[in-house]
């Protein structure tokens, strides 16, 4: 190519780039739902709403019109959590561009799809082959909490404001349901901040109902993994006296780690969660535990 051709090609490329830019701008603006679209979407959801349903948004962060859905159970975190959503009977997915046509996750069933202007409303049901039998979060009050103190083991008997504390209430040395940013989104979890000097923290449920699977999630909070403090945390799940899961979580290790433990045919179980760290500064460990039939 000679110089003139290169010059012409460069100019045409620039013009094409500018035209593409204009077209992208127009397309992006045109896809943004307005109040009328949100009203239509909300009407579709409310018309079919049943107790136990949940609203999520697609993309997960796109809850601009959320106020028109007030009063309904909903998830506004910036990422989906289909495991948590599967605890609901049905899930309404209120969708707009760029994910106006979301696909249900594996095992889920798409029940319906409704056009709502520039939006769509999808109704999905979670996998039908399992039901939730027990949640550690909901039965935390029934749990026994112990903390090691050197060679002794001390029960924590103070249940106040929905938290277990040993002795007087403490702002972070407690066991309690909280919401925390873990592995990219806010999660409703059980807070079990590690103790110092390798002293264990234990949360025990006795007679946990029978089921097929005990599913445990565990992770450190976003605030914890940002810090260079503390030491790795050893997390254990015990069924009776047997250690079913042992996981060491490094101080910067981000994740919401799932463990499925087969408990089929074993009858009601005693489930103990054990948390140990050599140095506990900022070791904000959190977990959930569920039994599925």
């Amino acid at each position, binding site marked *: 190519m000679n110089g003139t051709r290169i010059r012409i090609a460069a*100019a045409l490329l*620039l013009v094409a780039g500018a035209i593409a830019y204009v077209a*992208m701008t127009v397309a992006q603006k045109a896809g943004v739902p307005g109040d009328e679209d949100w009203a239509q979407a909300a009407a579709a959801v409310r018309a079919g709403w049943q107790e136990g349903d949940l609203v999520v948004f697609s*993309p997960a*962060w796109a809850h601009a019109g959320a106020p028109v859905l007030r009063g*309904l159970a909903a998830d506004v975190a910036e990422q989906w959590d289909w495991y948590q959503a599967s605890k609901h009977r049905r899930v309404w997915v209120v969708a707009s561009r760029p994910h106006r046509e979301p696909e249900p996750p594996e095992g889920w069933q798409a029940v319906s799809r409704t056009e709502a202007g520039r939006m769509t409303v999808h109704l999905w049901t979670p996998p039908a082959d399992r039901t939730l039998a027990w949640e550690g979060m909901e039965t935390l009050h029934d749990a026994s909490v112990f903390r090691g103190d050197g060679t002794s083991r001390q029960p924590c008997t103070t249940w106040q404001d929905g938290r277990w504390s040993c002795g007087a209430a403490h702002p972070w040395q407690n066991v309690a349901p909280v919401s925390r*940013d873990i592995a990219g989104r*806010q999660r409703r979890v059980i807070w079990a901040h590690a103790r110092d000097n390798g002293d264990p923290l234990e949360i025990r449920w006795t007679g946990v109902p029978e089921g097929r699977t005990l599913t445990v999630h565990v992770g450190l909070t976003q605030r914890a993994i940002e810090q260079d403090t503390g030491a790795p945390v050893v997390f254990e799940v015990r069924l009776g006296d047997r250690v079913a899961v042992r996981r060491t979580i490094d101080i910067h290790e981000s994740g919401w780690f799932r463990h499925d433990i087969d408990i089929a045919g074993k009858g009601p179980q005693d489930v103990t969660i054990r948390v140990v760290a050599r140095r506990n500064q900022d070791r904000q460990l959190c977990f959930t535990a569920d039994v599925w039939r």
Partner: protein
Amino acid sequence: MRVAPTRRDAVVGAALAVLHLAFLASTLDVGFSRDESFYFNAAEQYAGWYDLLLKEPGKALSKEAVDQFFAYNGEHPALPKMLYGASWRLFGRMHDPVAEPFSRAWYFQGNPPDTLLGWFSESTAMRLPALLLASFLVFAVYLFGVEFLGRRAALFAALGWMFQPHAFWHSHFACFDVPVTAMWFLSAWAFLKSVPPPGAPRTRSHVRWALATGVMLGLALNTKHNAFFFPPLAFLWWAWTRRREWSLRLEGAGLRLRIPPVPLAFFAMLLVTPAVYYLLWPKLWHDPVGHLKWYLSFHAKHEYYWVYYFGTLYTKPPFPLPFPFVMSAMTIPGTTVLLFAAGSLRLLREWVVRAASRFAASASGLASRLPVREPGMVLFVFLNFLIPFAVIAHPKVPHFGGTKHWLHGVPFACLMAGVGFEVLLDGLKALADRLGRAFSTKGVRVAGGALALLLFVAPAAYDTLTHTADGSSYYNAFAGGRAAMGELGMQREFWGNSSYSALGWVNEELPPNSRVHFHDTTWDAVRMYWRDGLLRRDVIPVWDLGSADELLFHWHKEFTDIEAEARDDWRVDLPAFVSAPDGVPLLDAWRRETPRGKTP
């Protein structure tokens, strides 16, 4: 080569500056960011010093007076805040504490000054010097472009700088970032004009520009500490461009070092700049060494801010090295980015061809067809673009999350985009010539040029003028538009200004005496909202969830725990109001459904 701008150039530059001021003045509905609110407070406190200066000039210069009036916000030079304070005092419409006794609480020490001219609201009066400086920068960019790169490049450079949503938004603030951008640009321009081209004699004009460099750099340093990087840049540029004039020879018994003529501007930087710096910063008057030491150490050990970048929340070093480059590529309008890329490639090609022509005769022919440019000028523009970006890019330097900290490099990027505009026009001209005589008439060429300008400027203008209230949330269409914030996990607002978008809802919907948690919006910003009549005066600002009725949650990844706490404690799943331009939530307003102290 240098082309002295004509009177007509000055008129064009002034017209662009006036247009810019008109755009800025007609888009003042910009919420008060955290840093601006602190400077409002500082400006108000500093302004008290003028009263003392008029009454008792001797006392005003005393250490006691300086410590009294300039104690606050000593981590930044006083000049911008002194200007904002003077403008506020002169032009601001103050509240009358007799007619409105409640308004006392909105002012420093409960003492609003008397209204003098009362032309503007208080925030606009504070912002006025920054608006004027931002507009003057447009004038300077155009004239610099005319002088060193040609009129066509200059025109696009000025328009390209005017129409940048982030820079335009920052231009409104009574802050330091656009002012220091202007000061840096003027320092650089003065410096370049003070250095005679290689081989040319030094004239009186060069001396005058050298003095101007000293003064401008003093003003720049008095605006923000970024300016400390200019002298090393200037030295590096001079040392490199005059590298062939350096020599070290053995002569007689010793070594003889020959150095090129040292620009007078360097002497001005050593003598004039410190004097200006000292004179305009009262905190230096009585303790220059002590305060300077504290100031430098404050910035050397600056705390780290969160940076949300491609789905990762960075809280400490190492920060991502490409951050400023990638953020600018995503937050400068796409058409300007395209021309910047084209301009950079052309300048790179010119450099390669010129370098090659020294070694290969075959390249000399190519080099002779290149545009004639002042030796070293392109490198100067490039370094002024690169260094501000590179300083922030260093993984150990706080990245802060926004785009304002390297803004002083962006006008130079616009000048390079101006060269890209030349590439476009040259190519279109070649195309017209090829298409035949009917297309190469002057009328067609002018019309084609105007259309090309429109094609590249109109999208940038549209992007800018549709993002005036929340410019820091702008991402260009190539990045996916504002949706990039959600899709790619990027910073959404910077910082604390988004409350402004909820004030209508607060004023209209909330019951009397509502206690509002303003989250990232500061007390100083709330005071100014009251003073400007933008917020109902019965609203009680609190920064504690337990005692709040509403939370104005500014969407920041690092703060989502606060929002979750409100959801959990108040047992509500969805916000009552969402500010979501282009569908991306910037602010969620949460409302307690049961009275405080009662469990839902």
